[in-house]
């Protein structure tokens, strides 16, 4: 039972982390190749506060705030760049974060931070907190997509220049997407730190950024349900299949390549196409019977 609880907790944290990237990349169309840095910012903030005696629940908003501030700075620096240049800028932020953490003894350097206190809630209740936070953010994402903010995000993802010509302050909307997305990654980081109770620079490197991007792309960029499914599946696959764990980067890269080649809109797009194909065939067969 303990193993299943660990699996579910890992799943929930991954779902929250993937949804946070989906908010930036999926909703607002801003590619990020350094998203693990914000998971790391939240994890380090929460771990260090916990070790200083701050209760777990109070470290969550602090982790969100720290990651959101870092996200706002990245967002401000990224306002004038887009597409490939934005990808390189965010990748640079990811490398910069790991580089700084590695060099600072204050953050545990190469060794990282071990002995992070438990959440104090027990494994089951901690799992329930993780699941509740993941579903709360999923519900929030679904709501935002229906709101005028989501409408503008969709427009920015489609064409920034046209959105600007419609009198919309594109920079402000992009910045808000960055702040909400990175702040949520920070919350996921706080959960991550208290779940594994050990964090190091390698936990938040480029491989993690690519892994979470793979979850978003495989699920379907912008699709909340698709991303939940892909994040839940891809987060536990390495734990269930040793081969995938050994060749994680190779596996995720092959998956990304296959998705971009055969179904660029991910599992969500695949399901939509399948469902419309089935309904078309049903209509045709009904027509033939008549």
């Amino acid at each position: 039972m303990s193993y299943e609880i660990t699996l579910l907790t890992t799943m929930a944290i991954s779902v929250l982390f993937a949804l946070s990237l989906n908010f930036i990349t999926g909703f607002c169309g801003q590619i990020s190749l350094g998203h693990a840095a914000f998971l790391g910012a939240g994890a380090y903030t929460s771990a260090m506060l916990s070790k200083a005696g701050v209760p777990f629940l109070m470290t969550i908003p602090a982790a969100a705030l720290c990651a959101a501030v870092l996200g706002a700075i990245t967002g401000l620096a990224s306002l004038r760049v887009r597409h490939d240049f934005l990808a390189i800028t965010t990748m640079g932020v990811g490398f910069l974060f790991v580089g700084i953490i590695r060099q600072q003894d204050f953050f545990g350097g190469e060794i990282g931070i071990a002995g992070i206190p438990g959440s104090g809630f027990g494994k089951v209740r901690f799992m329930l907190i993780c699941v509740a936070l993941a579903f709360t953010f999923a519900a929030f994402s679904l709501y935002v997509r229906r709101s005028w903010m989501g409408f503008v995000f969709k427009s920015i993802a489609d064409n920034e220049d046209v959105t600007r010509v419609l009198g919309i302050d594109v920079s402000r909307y992009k910045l808000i997407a960055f702040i909400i997305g990175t702040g949520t990654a920070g919350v996921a980081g706080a959960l991550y730190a208290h779940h594994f109770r050990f964090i190091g620079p390698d936990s938040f490197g480029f491989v993690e950024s690519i892994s979470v991007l793979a979850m978003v792309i495989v699920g379907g960029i912008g699709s909340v349900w698709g991303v939940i499914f892909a994040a839940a599946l891809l987060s536990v696959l390495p734990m269930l299949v040793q081969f995938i764990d050994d060749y994680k980067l190779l596996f995720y890269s092959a998956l990304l390549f296959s998705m971009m080649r055969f179904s660029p809109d991910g599992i969500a797009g695949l399901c939509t196409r399948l469902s419309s194909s089935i309904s078309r065939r049903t209509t045709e067969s009904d027509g033939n019977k008549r």
Partner: protein
Amino acid sequence: MTEILHVSGVTVRFGGVCAVENVDLRINDGELIGFIGPNGAGKTTLMRVITGIVQPQDGKVFLEGVDITNKATHQRIRAGLALAQQIVQPLRAMSLLDNVALACGGEKTHHALKSMWITDISSEHNRARALLTRVGLSHVVKELPGTLPLGYLKRLEVARALALNPKLLLLDEPLAGLSQKEAASLADLISTLNADGQTILLIEHNLREVMRICPTLYVQDNGKSLAFGKAEAVMSDPNVRNAYLGVSHA
């Protein structure tokens, strides 16, 4: 008549090339001005200066007497400009109705954080439907732009620009790429909009339609103002005929 736009002494250089040189232009409320000139005359550059996409090295742009030279594009749009672009750029993931509804929702998208708490779009959909009907697209409101021909998308650009309730509508070659029949029909629409009180600056190469619908012409050549005035008078100006039509005057 109230002055809507005043472009004053605008100069734009790209490296060593002077695309627009010391240009002055005034547009009054209710006017329909045809902005013509040969390729490379600096028409689109001046349009970009007006909308804030290009910053001039010299000169100022005033909208209703207010200096907007240093304002960002979205601020100029909110101040009363609207642009229908030469190369159609619909939001391809949205239906025509949503394309126009987004432009109608200026009040709701003005404050980014407040926009998160608003989900009602029914009034914008109603207004968008009326605007699409006005430009002759009532039968395709639910269609995605990718499935429609160029003539429809040009009309969508106009509907989206009208949705912004502009004081000045800037139309950048709306007739380009259209058949003679489609161009005449869209020109009629532009003329009707002006008759209803809409102030319009129309950049266009289709002289036949420009002469038909525009009472006033502004001509630019090699980045410089060449002529401004009544259409017939401007077109009979030897300098204009020489520069624009390549007809030399003896």
